[in-house]
């Protein structure tokens, strides 16, 4: 854990040039953010449908119908949006980063950077970690919008009026819910980027070890998402 934190701080440490880093950062933002939009939208459709169906199944007839809109909205903003999007990005980006950096390590490309007096932490890890940290909140926002719309569709299919659903969604969702979800997304992004880079960067051996590092990166990302989700839920949403 100490080495993991040291790695994160070392990667984000000062001494890098913004002009030189920007092209690599843009490339990572495109891969980890823009290219992830289709899969996030696809997942969001079903997250919204399922959340509305499950909420309706449990609450319809017990509470007023607008509670379904409130439940769907708050669940998406506080929990489901950030966590589902984080799992998608972890399975997609942490594995890719680990495999890429691991291959670079065993083919001596990272050593080559050092022999060229180029800091490999700043050259390789910084753009990836920052890009994941910035792109995840945006992906979470996309997921929340799409899932809310499909949640509305599912609610209408259950016989809940559009007006009732939207009333619950807009009147009982607090700014703190949205900001709390975004804070979670930023932290998840930071942890996913760091996990992916960490295991790839320190690979030793051959192709088999790159495979193992990739598995570890995804598993660690998933564990860190769940643990930090609990910690942040306790800090942000405890009354």
């Amino acid at each position, binding site marked *: 854990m100490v080495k993991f934190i040291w790695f994160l701080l070392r990667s984000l440490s000062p*001494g890098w040039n913004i002009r*030189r880093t920007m092209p690599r950062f843009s490339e990572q933002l495109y891969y980890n953010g823009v290219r992830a939009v289709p899969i996030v939208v696809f997942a969001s459709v079903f997250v919204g449908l399922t959340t509305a169906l499950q909420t309706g199944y449990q609450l319809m007839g017990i509470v007023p119908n607008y509670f379904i809109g409130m439940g769907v909205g708050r669940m998406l903003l506080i929990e489901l949006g950030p966590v589902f999007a984080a799992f998608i990005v972890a399975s997609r980006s942490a594995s890719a980063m680990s495999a890429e950096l691991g291959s*670079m390590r065993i*083919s*001596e*490309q990272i*050593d*080559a950077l*050092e*022999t*060229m*007096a*180029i*800091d490999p932490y700043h*050259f390789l890890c910084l753009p990836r970690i920052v890009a994941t940290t910035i792109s995840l909140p945006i992906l979470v926002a996309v997921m929340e919008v799409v899932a809310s719309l499909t949640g509305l569709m599912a609610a209408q299919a259950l016989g809940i009026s559009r007006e009732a659903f939207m009333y619950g969604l807009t009147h009982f969702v607090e700014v703190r819910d949205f900001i709390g979800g975004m804070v979670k997304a930023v932290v998840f992004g930071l942890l996913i980027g760091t996990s992916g880079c960490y295991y790839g960067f320190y690979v030793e051996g051959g192709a088999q070890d790159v495979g193992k590092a990739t598995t570890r990166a995804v598993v660690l990302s998933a564990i860190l998402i769940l643990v930090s989700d609990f910690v942040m839920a306790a800090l942000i949403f405890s009354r």
Partner: protein
Amino acid sequence: MIRVHQLSKRLRGEPVLEDVNLEVPDGSCVCVLGRSGAGKSVLLKIIVGIIPPDSGQVSYENQRLNFGALADNRQIIMQTGFVFQGGALFDGMTVGDNIALPLRERTNLSEQEINERVGRVLSRVGLAHSVRLKVRELSGGMVRLVAIARALVTEPKYIFFDEPTTGLDPLLKERVLGIIKDLSRNGRSVLMVTHDLDFARQIADQIYIMKAGRVYLVDRNVKKEDYE
């Protein structure tokens, strides 16, 4: 002058280098000869500061490498060029971008100056028309030549070669030999690790033979029996 003094290194508990001493005088070509597993590549990586030794020192012009804080060695490392055995090129980039990388990251040269330098150094290794090729489109020999070009583009004072002739056909070997001879003639210091005795004899001002992590013989005129 590069001085290596009493260098020792263990990897996974096994000694890889033991009390290695070595000197590379300015403008000379020194070869470290040894079979696979003799510790040659580890020695080279310690000399350029990639791997820290367990004990011993490396100094460039009496300035010691600081293995505890590699950032302190930036001024020294900027005077070195390293040619890896497998090339260690970035396969997502073109040949030109690979060679330009140290210039773009370390200098404030304009793109025009960088392109001119890249063109010059590619001509020098005989690949003048390959600037736009992707690394994955290159043959093994071309990869080695591009790696040499990348090491030379910053005009370093010290150049290190890790097995520069492995897997090369005789013609390419000749070309690499010519490049290294040119470097020596132009006052660059060259340190090369290889297991190619004939190549070393053609080029080296001094040959160190390594066996099981130790320098076993230092001579200019090494015979085949010495090596075996």
